[in-house]
């Protein structure tokens, strides 16, 4: 059975499923209840599940993320929503110093079965303080698991396994994806350990995740129309990283281009590049390339913001150079 769903509806259904299947689950965060969620993801859930389980919090990212950790330690299965990744910087301490470290630091005695969801990314002229992509920062930290659902099926299906996971899971939802619509086949995204090939191809591998997947797929179609067949790999899981999915692809195509919305310096693409160098160097026909955001706080003006972000045209151009051997 398949139905047409938006990414937002998919995520809402996923939340409903978790709340229905496990009475220990609660959703907490700023404006998740009365307001209906700042991206309307949790709209209607307060009426269905009540204020204890759909718990509005004050503006206290450090406090309620820390409380989520305590709640998880105490036996609940909290899903903590941070409005956006930008504000998660106020909660880095509990996430990195407590949630991620707890199991190891306590010699395996305590673990933190908490899910943290947050919107991420740019693209809506929100300027420097509301446009971050910091997935790679979180993926840097041992003890966290980091997911980036980029499709409707992943939005619908990755939450439940994340809720069941005994360790802290951070889920990044690119704000530009919420209106994405697609047919959904139940269960098709229920896997939080593997990346996926979204489009098979033979001439080069485009590696991406999250909000950059649509632009990358669009670029792939443009390239295909011009006779270049890219394979598109969606990482889906940034930590623990599924290397096999892109290494296997690169070994076949011999070329890799990584697309992400993070800044280039020290971004997640640098990590992917390093893994390819370490493990597939001799399979490459050309140097690995990256299309990332420009090294600038994301600007407000539409044309400037567009210029700062990875656009399909830039992906196409980079892919062409790579295939023609012009990149080096």
């Amino acid at each position, binding site marked *: 059975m398949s139905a047409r769903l938006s990414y937002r509806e998919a995520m809402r259904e996923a939340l409903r499923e978790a709340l229905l299947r496990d009475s*220990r689950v*609660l959703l907490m965060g700023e404006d998740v209840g009365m307001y209906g969620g700042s991206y309307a993801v949790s709209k209607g859930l307060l009426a269905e599940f009540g204020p*204890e389980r759909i718990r509005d*919090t*004050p503006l*206290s990212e*450090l*406090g*309620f*993320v*820390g*409380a*989520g*950790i*305590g*709640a*998880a*330690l*105490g*036996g*609940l299965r*909290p899903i903590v929503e941070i409005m956006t990744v930008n504000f998660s910087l106020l909660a880095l*301490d*509990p996430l990195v*110093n*407590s949630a991620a470290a707890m*199991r*190891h*630091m*306590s*010699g*395996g*005695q*305590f*673990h933190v*079965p908490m899910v943290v969801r947050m919107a991420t990314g740019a693209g809506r002229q929100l300027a420097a303080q509301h446009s971050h992509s910091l997935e790679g920062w979180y993926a840097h930290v*041992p*003890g966290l*698991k980091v997911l980036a659902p980029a499709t409707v099926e992943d939005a619908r299906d990755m939450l439940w396994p994340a809720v069941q*996971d*005994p*360790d802290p899971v951070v889920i990044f939802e690119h704000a530009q994806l919420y209106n994405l619509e697609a047919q959904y086949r139940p269960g098709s995204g229920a896997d939080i350990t593997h990346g996926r090939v979204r489009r098979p191809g033979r001439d080069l591998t485009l590696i991406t995740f999250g909000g950059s997947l649509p632009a990358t797929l669009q670029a792939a179609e443009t390239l295909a129309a011009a006779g270049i067949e890219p394979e598109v790999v969606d990482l889906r899981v940034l930590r*623990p990283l599924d290397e096999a999915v892109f290494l296997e692809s690169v070994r076949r195509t011999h070329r890799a281009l990584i697309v992400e919305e993070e800044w280039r310096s020290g971004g997640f693409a640098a990590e992917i590049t390093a893994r390819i160098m370490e493990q597939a160097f001799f399979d490459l026909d050309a140097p690995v390339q990256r299309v990332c955001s420009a090294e600038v706080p994301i600007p407000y003006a539409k044309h400037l913001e567009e210029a700062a972000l990875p656009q399909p045209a830039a992906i196409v151009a980079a892919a062409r150079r790579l295939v023609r051997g012009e990149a080096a």
Partner: protein
Amino acid sequence: MTDVPYSREFALDLVREMLRIRRFEEICAELYGTMKIRGFLHLYIGEEAVAVGVLRAAQAKDAVVATYREHGHALVRGIPAKVILAEMFGKASGCCRGRGGSMHLFDAATRFHGGNAIVGGGLPIATGLALAERMLARQGIVFCFFGEGAVAEGAFHESMNLAALWRLPVLFCCENNLYAMGTSLARSESQTDLCVKAGSYGMAAQPVDGMDVVAVHEAAKSAAEAVRAGGGPRFLELRTYRYRAHSMFDPDLYRSKEEIEAWKKRGPLHGLTGRLKAQGSMSEEDFQRLEAEVRAEFEEAVAFAEAAPLEPAADLLRDVYTPAGGA
């Protein structure tokens, strides 16, 4: 001097626990000198009445959250001294398999949630533990210890607000020893009356003589009862003093010898033993017997820690994530 209002048995228990902390910390300092213990080491000497008085008001079903100055709390809570020491020796038999050290003692069996080395870091966690207690309809409460230095952190204010707003069962126990490392309360707070701060969140807040274990225990007992009865969080400001430097690296330049000596005159241990002797419920022989018991306990603990095996380095990555199928 008023009489100690407890049975001889309970009074001697209070003496024993304070003595255990005192002697344990002295041994730790020695072992630091001989390099058996490394890393940061924060001693609790002078503050014993706080952990003992408060935690003797706790029940097995309650949870405890403490700071990096938590050896005393861990001992009183019932974590065996030998596994605490083995932890500080970095051994596999330590309560955290050598992953935590002095600042990160954890024990699931006694619901001892650390051992948090981020100032203020324990408060949000305690708040969440209390939320779980309430939502799962359990009867436990959470004892949350922190220094007065933490009061300046956002985590303090956010947690006080959340706990009060949601009427959660937390007893916030502020160990006001007047100094955060070298910064005195007066040099760091615009409002030095900590109960005013807590009170502003709408919770009952009470200052307590933290050098008097009886005063501490009485205050903690009634506060814990109120919290347990569903009255929401409470705040105790336990006025105390650390005799030793902040850590083994601190040259202690920020306070006078006279000040330290003056506080030592109010020492919690001899305060209680003096009263008990005066009222005839404890003799010097009783005290010496406790000393001997405590000495024997810790001699055995040191030997255990010494002999304990190291965690194999091959197991370094163990417990970063839960193994598949486990929790």
